[in-house]
């Protein structure tokens, strides 16, 4: 932890979790370390504290503190009107979020996981995404929906989906996948400034991870993919829970002198195509890492964009590291084999650079 004046400031921890620095008068800090979970909670706290139109609702977000403890303490601080437990009625509480947004509020709806969001898919696709266009521009739906996504927790086929690519298929939605603690901390602020619906996917496995958060006073640009690692030999394009694995793979490959550029998409819609194409123009090789199933994956979309925009820059076909075409199995060795791993990313990059 560092601060602008070189002083080391102890972060105060309370019984209900982390206290955001601005509550402690610590605006002078430039960078602090926190977990992804703490970052989400700090973002929610900031949203509730800074805009009276914001409220949070979802299953067990209030008294329970959130299934992943992302909202712990918020109910106690902001009260039952603004931090609301809902019945297990995904379609209706997501639809109610749409209605509340139409009615002038800025709801944040937590659908515990992407798996349960399938029960609300009608409201998201048929209403949230369409209302502005279908009404000839009369109504906007400034709604933020958050949900956990991904595999890796040994919770089997009904709790391990990675369907952010499905949502990214739908015009009218903005789809964000914070892959770093910093983005978990600040993407919500940017999402709440959007006049239209935003869906945020938080990968399960990231919640306990720790990272640096640089203090910001303004919103971050959610429309920009970021190069998380600069390289020359191949471009790895990824998002969310696969970012850490991709960076790890790049370190392994660097030991053999293969320098990968790693692009964190951050937003699946809108998609920052120029950042992808300019990197591929430099490295001439691309590997897309995506926890979605191989067929019809978001990786397939990235691959197509590269083919359309950088075909003559390529020295090798685009490769994809996706989840095997199987419902995610329970047993550890099977689940690990199903989803992208550091080893598979490494071997795929080696193959693409002709060093496999």
């Amino acid at each position, binding site marked *: 932890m560092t601060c602008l004046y070189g002083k080391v400031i102890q972060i105060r921890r309370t019984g209900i979790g982390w206290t955001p620095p601005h509550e402690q008068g610590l605006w002078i800090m430039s960078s602090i370390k926190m977990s992804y979970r703490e970052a989400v909670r700090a973002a929610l706290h900031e949203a509730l504290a800074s805009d009276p139109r914001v*409220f949070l609702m979802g299953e067990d977000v209030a008294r329970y503190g959130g299934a992943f403890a992302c909202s712990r303490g918020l109910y106690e601080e902001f009260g039952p*009107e603004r931090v609301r437990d*809902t*019945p297990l*009625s995904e*379609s*209706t*509480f*997501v*639809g*109610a*979020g*749409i*209605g*509340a*947004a*139409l*009615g*002038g*509020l800025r*709801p944040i709806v937590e659908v515990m996981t992407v798996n349960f969001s399938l029960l609300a898919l*009608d*409201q998201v696709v*048929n*209403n949230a995404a369409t*209302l*502005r*266009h*279908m*009404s*000839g*521009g*009369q*109504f*906007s739906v*400034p709604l933020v929906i958050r949900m956990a996504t991904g595999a890796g927790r040994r919770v089997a086929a009904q709790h391990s989906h990675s369907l952010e690519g499905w949502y990214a298929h739908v*015009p*009218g939605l903005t789809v964000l996948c914070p892959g770093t603690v910093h983005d978990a901390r600040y993407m919500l602020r940017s999402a709440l400034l959007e*006049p*239209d619906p935003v869906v945020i996917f938080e990968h399960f496995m990231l919640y306990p991870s720790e990272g640096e958060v640089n203090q910001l006073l303004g919103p971050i640009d959610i429309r920009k993919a970021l190069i998380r690692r600069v390289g020359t030999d191949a471009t790895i394009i990824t998002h969310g829970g696969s970012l850490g694995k991709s960076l790890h793979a790049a370190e392994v490959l660097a030991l053999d002198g293969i320098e990968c550029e790693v692009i964190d998409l951050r937003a699946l819609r809108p998609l920052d195509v120029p950042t992808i194409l300019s990197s591929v123009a430099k490295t001439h090789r691309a590997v897309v890492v995506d926890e979605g199933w191989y067929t019809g994956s978001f990786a397939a979309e990235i691959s197509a964009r590269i083919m359309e925009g950088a075909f003559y820059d390529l020295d090798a076909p685009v490769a994809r590291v996706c989840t095997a075409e199987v419902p995610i199995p329970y047993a550890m060795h099977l689940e690990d084999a199903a989803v992208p791993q550091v080893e598979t990313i490494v071997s795929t990059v080696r193959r693409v650079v002709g060093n496999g």
Partner: protein
Amino acid sequence: MTPPATTDSPVQQDRHLLRQMLLIRRFEEKCAELYSHGKIQGFLHLYIGEEAVAVGAMQALTPDDNVVSTYREHGHALARGMPPGAAMAEMFGKANGCSRGRGGSMHLFDAGLRFFGGNAIVGGGLPIAVGLALADQLRKRPAVTACFFGDGAVAEGEFHESLNLAALWKLPVVFICENNLYAMGTHLHRHQAQIDIARKADGYGMPGVAVDGMDVRAVVAAMQHAVGFVRNKNGPMLVEMRTYRYRPHSMYDPELYRGKDEVELWRQRDPISTFMAQLIAEGNFTDNDRRELEQEVQAMVADAIAFAEAGQWEPVADLLKDVHTPVGTGKPK
């Protein structure tokens, strides 16, 4: 059409109800004709036979209240005060339509009237109504949300979820079930174990009432009671309007599921002709009034068609417009 003034005499209010019902009837008869000429395309769901429900229900609402409707919503839109030209132009797909030709018959919207659409997914509007009411509750607006849906929606999970959530949070919603006996072509007896829809309110701890939806005065009275109950922070209420559509479900429906005799029985209870007869019997309406009203309404429909015909097509260059709110337009509406 201008909304009725509360200072209107009972006779004037009756005439207003009759005029609105007749406008919807004539407007939709013309829609069917224009559909056969290819002027209106896609789906067209006519409300003919059910006019007393929309007209009577809107009578109980204020301009600050919200209306959420279904894909059979021409009547609701017109009764709420949408200019017939804007509705007709929308069905023509013209840029001067209420939704700039992006919605069509099933998606009439009007922000100024707080008319939150024609929703064409059965049951899909109920959660939105719950959310609008939640916003009003949190913002302390004394508004009521009127949510229309059909008997078919009662079979959807969102009906049950929404009634539960609205009752749990004591939200100001009047759930108005337009029970026309058919979920598309499936009779109520064939899709509901409990066909007394109003009784379903019991399961959610809210009052439910069944109303003769062919009697506009009965609809007005029931809705005034329901809206008053809901506005007084008593939580939501379910109103079942027992009604009937004479026309097929849509223009594609061969009506294999019901007989002409059944339709004829309901026609004998027609909300417009029975109300007109009632007014004549009460001495407040004459044959001459009837002729004048017919002329007035037909002129309104003719004007609406002329407005739609004169409208421009949205430029194809604007195809992608309004998928997202343009950046820099400030706060959303």
